[in-house]
């Protein structure tokens, strides 16, 4: 398990000596080494290319494919893929490709932001628990266990049900829903990261290099941030990658249930929600957003798998 990774050899540590390896290879750094290991995982590399393509497509696609997402054209409604509409049209004759490109921005950024929230809370709680043993540690870990046994989707639905209107009026329909979904998804996924970080701190804080830092008078904060966390980074990155995929699925699920973003914001899950009643006459409308979600999640999961191999220095590759 990544939690018990020995301190001295962690791949992402900025100042690993690795003298023996450096003697043989002239150019050597933990980052390069991780990249060399990552490239061994063919599927992960292919996934990284696909994901990068998707990110570029949603970032710059709307600038190239300039069809408006809400141009209603009843003459062309529910058309299959044609040259004018490569992904077909929906029940209002709106261009599905344009909607997917625009909605993808939100779907992907929800995933990323929710992961950042989860990683931030997780590292904070984990570091706090690991450094302060005793009662605080016990309470925080009990809290993590409690959150792990909460049914996530029902709770997510409950929170959205209760807070939807207030946030909408405070931050507008788009911003409010975005903030809420990011915070709630992130807030329900910090536990694995917290446990990882705590386990790393417990094993690292007694190591000689941390003791040396302590002896030199480094504050607790500095010991954690400067000396311990960089060594715990590998597993956290892997957990974070998988969190992005989980957050994308969570957002799509909410939108698919009709409880996520409002109809005028075509996230992939939302498009799927609108398309599901036309499955018999316009299957393309549901297939493209579904495939987009699947492809994004699959490639992120594969990248996570590749990173797990690449960032775990005990694994021989």
């Amino acid at each position: 398990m990544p939690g018990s990774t020995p301190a001295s050899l962690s791949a992402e540590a900025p100042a690993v000596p690795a003298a023996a390896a450096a003697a043989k290879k002239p150019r050597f750094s933990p980052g390069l080494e991780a990249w060399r290991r990552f490239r061994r995982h063919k599927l992960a590399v292919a996934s990284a290319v696909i994901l990068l393509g998707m990110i570029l497509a949603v970032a710059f696609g709307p600038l190239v494919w300039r069809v408006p997402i809400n141009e209603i054209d009843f003459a062309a409604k529910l058309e299959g893929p044609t040259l004018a509409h490569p992904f077909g049209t929906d029940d209002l004759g709106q261009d599905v490709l344009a909607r997917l490109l625009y909605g993808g921005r939100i779907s992907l950024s929800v995933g990323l932001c929710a992961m950042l929230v989860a990683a931030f809370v997780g590292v904070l709680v984990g570091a706090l628990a690991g450094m302060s043993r005793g009662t605080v540690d016990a309470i925080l870990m009990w809290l993590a266990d409690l959150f792990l046994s909460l049914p996530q989707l029902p709770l997510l639905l409950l929170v959205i049900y209760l807070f939807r209107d207030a946030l909408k009026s405070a931050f507008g329909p788009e911003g409010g829903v975005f903030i809420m979904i990011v915070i709630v998804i992130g807030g329900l996924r910090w536990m694995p990261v917290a446990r990882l970080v705590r386990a790393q701190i417990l094993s690292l804080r007694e190591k000689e290099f941390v003791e040396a830092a302590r002896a030199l008078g480094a504050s607790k904060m500095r010991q954690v941030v400067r000396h311990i966390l960089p060594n715990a980074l590998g597993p956290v990155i892997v957990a974070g990658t998988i969190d992005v995929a989980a957050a994308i699925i969570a957002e799509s699920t909410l939108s698919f249930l009709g409880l996520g973003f409002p109809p005028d914001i075509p996230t992939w899950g939302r498009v799927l929600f609108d398309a599901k009643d036309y499955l018999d006459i316009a299957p393309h409308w549901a297939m493209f957003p579904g495939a987009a979600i699947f492809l994004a999640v699959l490639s992120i999961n594969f990248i996570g798998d590749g990173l797990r191999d690449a960032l775990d220095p005990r694994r021989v590759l």
Partner: protein
Amino acid sequence: MSRQYLIRRLLIAIPSLLGISLVLYSVLALAPGDPFGELATNPAIPPEVAAALRAKFGLDDPVWSRYLHWLTAMFQGDWGFSFVSRMNVDTLILQRLPTTLIVIGAAQLLAIVVALPIGVLAATRPYSVFDQIANTLAFIGFSLPTFFTGLLLILLFSIKLDWLPFVFRDDITATGLQWLWEETKQSIMPVMVLGLFQGASLVRFVRSAVLDVVRLDYVTTARSKGIGERKVVVRHVVRTALIPVVTLVALQMPIVFGGAIVTEQIFRIPGIGSLLISSILANDTPVVMGVTFVFACLVVLFNLIADFLYAWLDPRIAFR
């Protein structure tokens, strides 16, 4: 399994149930909107009347006393009244619960039946072609969101092939074998969606658990005694490897419930998952709270079952 262990685990479940109820209640209490908010702004209602109403329903009490009040009401079975369905929340949930449990149970069974042999086979031939295919398929399986698999299956089996009905019917009038056949036909797709999603992650658990055990000394001993490879795997390896898998299956339960909500919604199965969605859309707060609490209780219950199974399968656990 000692009785002491059993009691200890049961006692540990109580604070986690209390904690979950606390989380649920604080979400409810923090939520904006007050059931009597309208009264306060309505000029036709004198402030004294509004204050009297608030006092009557205990809305001005401190939060902790309202929480205790709510908690005792929940424990006494007073879960409130659903204004949309015009019945008590607990009766409503009890009506719907069996359907959900049957679907989830069947899906888990399917997942285990599929994942166990594949995981064991993959682990006994690590890095072989079979292992790589199984691994890739498992990745695809748990990257496919349940709502998309559901739509794909409907498209394939209901629309293109017209083999299976895509709306779950509660009112099948047929009897005997005909009834069983209809029920099976309409359950195939939901159970497949949930079961395959669950099975995909289970394959990976089983594989890594078996890989951990295969290298142990006692397996080498068994093999060197000349027992056939098949027997070594089935009698010696799998039995030990399944112990951690049991816990992992239970830890997956929150995710399974999430999948069940989606599946029930797609196939319109009248379970508590679709009840949750419809009551959210209808603003039926007592039902929403009740269903969420039931889901939480089910998760705790399954964790408890896993603990007991774990101790029963591995007697060393109970003595720790």
